[in-house]
C-alpha cells in the first residue's frame, strides 16, 4: 500500500526561490522497514532538489524492481515516475531521455537491480554517457525476498542466516570508472551532510553520474559480520573528499588553500568546491582513484566522497548530434517529409 500523507503545510514553512516548500518535494509515506537506509537517501534527494530550486515536474524518477526501486514513490510526488522491470531501468531511461533531453533523469536502483540482473544495462548506460543521475541504494542483499546475498556483498561477510559469502563483491564505482563513467561518487545513507551536495553535483553533471550509496538493510543485513551494517560502515568509512556544491548564481569565496581545495566547474556553470583529504588523489585522474579504490579494498575500507569527475563530458544526445529541440515536441512539419518527396522516392524505384 502507498499511504497518503497529509497535504497540510504550515504557512510559515520556508520556501525556495520557486515558492515551493520542502513538503512539495516529498512523496507518499514510505512502506519500507523502519530505519531503512533508503529512506534517508529519499530524504537527501528531497533536500537536494528543494535547495537547488528544481521544478519537480522537470524531473523524471526512474527505477527497476526491488526495495530501492519502490522509493520514487516516497519523494517528488509532483514528478512523473516509472517503476519498470527488474534490472532494466537504464534502457527505459535511455529512451525517455532521447525523447526529451530537456528533463532531469533521476534513476534509483539497488545492488541486485544493478549488479546482478541489470549488470548488462548498467554497463551500457555508463558507456553511452546518458545524461542522468544513477543512485544505487546498496545494501548487499535482497530485501524483498528475505535477505539473500547480492553481488555486491563483500567476500567473507556473514549474512543473517550465518552463511559466509564466498564470492568477491562487485565494486560498482571502480567498474563504472573503468566503463567510462564521467561522474562517480560514493557515500553512506547515514551521512546526509556528504550525500546532499553529492546529489546536487550529480544532478548538475552533464552525462552519466553514479552515486553508490551504502544503505544498510536493517532487517536482513545489519548484523555483526555484515560489511554493510551501520556499525561497520561508520567504523570503516574513509572520507576521500568533502565537498560543497556552489550553484551558478552564488559568488565563490576566493580565499581557499589551493593545495587542499579543488574547484570543479560544472557544465551549467555551477561549481564543486572539493576538499581533498588525500594528497595523491586527483578527482580528474582515473589512475589515482583506481589505485585509491584498490588500496581501500585491501584495508576493507569504504572510500566516500566524489571519487572521479570528467567535466568535459559529452552526453549521449550530443554524441548522436540530435537536435536541441526535445524530439517529443517535433510535429508533422519536422517529422513527415510529405507526398512530393514520396512520389520522388517511388520514381526512383521503378
Amino acid at each position, binding site marked *: 500500500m502507498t499511504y497518503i500523507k497529509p497535504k497540510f503545510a504550515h504557512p510559515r514553512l520556508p520556501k525556495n526561490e520557486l515558492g515551493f516548500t520542502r513538503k512539495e518535494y516529498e512523496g507518499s509515506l514510505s512502506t519500507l522497514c523502519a530505519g531503512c537506509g533508503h529512506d534517508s537517501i529519499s530524504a537527501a534527494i528531497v533536500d537536494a532538489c528543494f535547495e537547488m530550486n528544481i521544478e519537480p515536474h522537470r524531473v523524471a524518477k526512474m527505477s527497476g524492481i526491488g526495495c530501492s526501486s519502490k522509493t520514487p514513490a516516497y519523494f517528488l510526488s509532483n514528478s512523473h515516475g516509472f517503476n519498470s522491470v527488474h534490472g532494466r531501468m537504464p534502457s*527505459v531511461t535511455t529512451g525517455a531521455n532521447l525523447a526529451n533531453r530537456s528533463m532531469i533523469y533521476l534513476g534509483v536502483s539497488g545492488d541486485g537491480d544493478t549488479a546482478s540482473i541489470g549488470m548488462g544495462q548498467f554497463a551500457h548506460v555508463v558507456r553511452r554517457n546518458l545524461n542522468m543521475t544513477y543512485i544505487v541504494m546498496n545494501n548487499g542483499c535482497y530485501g524483498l525476498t528475505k535477505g539473500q546475498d547480492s553481488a555486491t556483498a563483500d567476500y567473507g561477510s556473514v549474512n543473517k542466516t550465518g552463511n559466509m559469502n564466498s564470492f568477491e563483491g562487485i565494486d560498482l564505482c571502480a567498474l563504472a570508472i573503468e566503463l567510462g563513467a564521467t561522474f562517480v561518487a560514493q557515500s553512506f545513507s547515514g551521512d546526509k551532510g556528504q550525500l546532499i551536495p553529492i546529489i546536487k553535483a550529480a544532478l548538475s553533471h552533464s552525462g552519466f553520474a553514479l552515486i553508490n550509496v551504502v544503505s544498510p538493510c536493517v532487517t536482513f543485513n545489519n548484523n555483526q559480520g555484515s560489511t554493510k551494517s551501520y556499525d561497520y560502515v561508520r567504523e570503516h568509512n574513509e572520507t576521500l573528499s568533502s565537498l560543497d556544491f556552489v550553484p551558478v548564481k552564488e559568488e565563490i569565496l576566493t580565499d581557499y588553500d589551493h593545495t587542499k581545495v579543488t574547484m570543479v566547474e560544472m557544465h551549467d556553470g555551477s561549481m564543486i568546491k572539493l576538499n581533498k583529504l588525500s594528497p595523491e588523489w586527483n578527482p580528474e585522474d582515473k589512475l589515482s582513484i583506481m589505485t585509491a579504490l584498490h588500496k581501500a579494498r585491501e584495508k576493507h575500507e569504504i572510500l566516500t566522497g566524489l571519487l572521479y569527475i570528467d567535466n568535459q563530458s559529452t552526453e549521449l544526445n550530443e554524441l548522436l548530434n540530435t537536435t536541441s529541440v526535445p*524530439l*517529443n515536441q517535433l510535429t508533422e512539419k519536422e*517529422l513527415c517529409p510529405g507526398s512530393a518527396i514520396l512520389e520522388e522516392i517511388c520514381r526512383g524505384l*521503378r
Partner: protein
Amino acid sequence: MSRINDFVVRFANVNGTGSASANYLFAKSVFRMGVPVSAKNIFPSNIQGLPTWYEVRVCEKGYLGRKEGIDLMVSVNPQSFKRDIASVKTGGYFLYDNTKPLHEEFLRDDIHFIGVPLMDICNREFTDPRQKQLFKNIVYVGAIVRLLNIDTSIIEGLFAEQFQGKEKLIAPNVKALHLGSDYVRDNFRYPLEFSVEVRDLVGDSIMIDGNSAAGLGAVYGGASVVSWYPITPSTSLVSAFEDYAKKLRKDPLTGKNNYSIVQAEDELAAIGMAIGANWNGARSFTATSGPGISLMSEFLGLAYYAELPVVLVDVQRSGPSTGMPTRTQQSDFISAAYASHGDTKHILLIPSTPTECFDMMADAFDYAEQLQTPVIMMSDLDLGMNEHMTSPFQWDDNRKYKRGKVLTASQLDTLPSWGRYRDVDGDGIPYRTLPGTHPTKGSYFTRGSSHDENAAYSEDSATYVRIMDRLLKKLETAKKILPAPQVYQSGKNSDHAILFYGTSMHAAEEALDVLKMEGTPMDAIRIKAFPFSFEVSEFIELYDKVFVIEQNRDAQVRALLINELEINPKKLVKVLNYDGTPITADFILKSIHQHLIQPNN
C-alpha cells in the same frame, strides 16, 4: 502453348560473391519491360562460401508467388551442381561455367546444357582478381539476356543508375554484359522457347523490399527514437530507416538530426528504450525477429499493463530457437499475440506487400498511441528481404498524426479531477499525461504492479479485476479501428472457403484463380489484424469448411481463431507449409485437392 513471359529462372551461386545484385539486375530488367516479376533470394546463414539461390518468376498473368519447377537454371556453384541439375524441369535448360568440363554423372538427357566459359572469359578479359570474380556474374547475366530476348540497353540503363557517382565502373560492367551476350550469339540458338516480350502490365508499380518500405513508413509515421539490436532478417529495416532519416530528417538550419537511433546491447534494452521514449511522448519503435520476441516478452507485458504505446516489427524467420535464420516462416503468431506472462493480448498487424508494410508501419504509431498499448507488425523474411513488385506509396499531406488521449497543461488546469486509468469515455481507453507537462498536476507513477484507476498501488481484488476487464474492453475498441479483412466473395457461396494472411497472399490468390478455372471456385478472406474483428467470424460462419493457409507447423493462426472466436476446430482445415521456403499456389492446391478427396486425412 506460348511460353512468352511465363517461366522460372533459378540462379545457384556461392554466397558472398556479389551474385544477388547481378541476379536482381535480371529481375529488374524484366520489370522494366513491363512484365510482372517476382524475385526471391534463398540464402544461407553464412557470410561467404555456402551455396545460395535466387529465384525469378516471370509471369504475364501477374502472379507474384513462388512457383515450383525450374525452366532455366543458371549454376555457377559446383558445390550444388548435382541437386541443381536434378531440380530442372524436363525440357528445361542448365546454364553452367564450362571452363572445366561437367562430370558425366551429372548429365541428364531430358534437359539442355548450355556451357559458357565464364571463368575463361573473365580471366582473359579482366586483370584485377576481384573483377575476374565479380564479372562472372555479369557475363552470365549477359548470356541469359540474349537467351531470353532482353534488350541489353535496359541492363545498361540499370548500370548507369546503379553506378551514379562511380561512373568508371559502368564501362567494365557493360563490357562483361556484352561478352556474355556475344558468346551466346556466336555459339547457341536463341531465344529459347520461353522468353521475355515487352508488355504494359506493371502500371505505376515500384519494386522494393518490405523492410525498406517499413523503414520509410516509420519516417512518414513520425518515429523519432529508434532502438534496435541486429538480427536477421530485421536488420535492414532499421538500416532503411536510418538511410531515409539521414536525408529526410536533418534540420535544415542546424544540420542536427530530428531523430535518434541507438544500437542497443540486446533486445531487452531495445524494447526498453522504445517503451521509455513512447512513455515520454516520442514515437518510437524497434524491429526484431523471433528470438527477439522471446527476449522482449517481459517488457511487452509491462507496456500492456501500464498502457504504454510502443511499435515493434517482427520480421519472422524459421524457428524454434536459432532455427533457420535466413529462411522464411510465419511462426511467431502465438508468441507475439500473447507475449509475456499473465493474461496479455497484443495488437498484430499483418502486411502482405511492401505497400502494406509502408502503410501499416505509419498507421501502427497511430494505433499504438490511440490505444496506449503495444502494436506488433508481423512481417516475414520473404516480405522483408525480397524485392517485390508493389503499388506506389501514397501520403495525404493533410494527414495529422493521431496522438491519442494525451492531456495538455491547460486541460489539466480545467479538469476537476484526473486519474491515469479511469475509463472516462467508456471505450476502455484512459487519458495519459506526459512527464514535464504541468508543475503540480498530472504526475503519476507508471508501474507494472497492480494499480487502481489513479495509478496507486493496489492489491484489492475487485480493483484488479476491474482494470483487467477494462483492458479487454480496450481491445474491443481496437477491433473497430484496426484494418478490416479483405474478403473475396463471388456472391454465390461455396461450401468451402480459404483463409490466409501475410505473404501467403500471392500464392493463395493464384490458387483461387486455378480453382475457379477448374470449376470449383471458392470464397476467401485475408486477415490483416489481430484481435480478429467480427467480419472474420461472420465470414467463417458462412462455410462448411475453411482452409487456413499458414507458413508454420502448428497452425498458429488457426489456434488463435479457435481460441478467440470459439470456432469448431473441425471446421478449420490446416494447410501448412513450413519448410522455410515461401509457399506456392501448387502446394495450396495440392493440399486442398487432397482434402477434398479424403476429407478425414
